[in-house]
């Protein structure tokens, strides 16, 4: 499968998962945004469809990490994994095109486009 497309699906999946999380947060609901339950179920379904579009192995890693950490992806900032705040080995930093996991915490790493 096309690596770019996989990355795009993975990122959107992660954003949607955070969206779903926020919807369920009482603090969010208290602010006063109305969320229709039917729409929420539809979003969950879309999220699962997106998961199926990922290569099977990656989908499994993602779900495992989500269960463990809640957020399966961690951005990289100044060479640090923002999931566990450990510095990443320099040889990893040149491989930002591939899907790589943090050698310390296992989260999928995300390099921001500069």
């Amino acid at each position, binding site marked *: 499968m096309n690596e770019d497309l996989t990355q795009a699906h993975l*990122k959107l999946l992660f*954003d949607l998962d955070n969206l779903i999380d926020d919807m369920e947060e009482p603090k969010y609901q208290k602010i006063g945004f*109305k969320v*229709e339950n039917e729409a929420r179920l539809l979003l969950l379904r879309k999220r699962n469809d997106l998961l199926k579009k990922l290569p099977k192995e990656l989908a499994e890693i993602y779900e495992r990490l989500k269960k463990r950490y809640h*957020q399966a992806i961690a951005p990289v900032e100044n060479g640090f994994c923002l*999931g566990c705040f450990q510095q990443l080995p320099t040889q990893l930093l040149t491989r930002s095109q591939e899907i790589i996991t943090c050698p310390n915490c296992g989260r999928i790493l995300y390099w921001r486009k500069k």
Partner: protein
Amino acid sequence: MNLSSLLSKKRINLSLKPGKKEAVIRELVYSIKKGEDAELIISTLLKREELGSTGIGKGIAIPHCRSLAVEKLEIAVGRTLKPINFKSIDKKPVSLIFLIIAPPQDPGNQYLITLGKIVQIAKEITKKNLIQKPKTPEEFISLINDLEKGLKRRK
């Protein structure tokens, strides 16, 4: 954290071209990010809108989401030259839009706090009928600053 300090003149457009909800969101997002990052944000924002419009009524909408594409909380503001259809809860068209994007990792819950604050400010703006008042981004920021001070005093 003051709301007004999160605003930047470059990201306040008080003469936004009216158009479809999606096009207006797109234009505001592109004042924050470009290309792939912007497209990710737009996809997520539109998914959020499908859950129920963020048009909170009385002419104001507050589209928002978290996204991997930003490294800190970002706000863009747009006022359309003519009110647009935002499928708001009160079915009224919208002319003032606060767009908020927060990073996924958000220690201290800055995202929800800011979102709550913007909703409060938005209510003040409609109550006092101030949507059309600021003529420049500078005036807009100082209006928000004043409203924020007013809310603080009342607490």
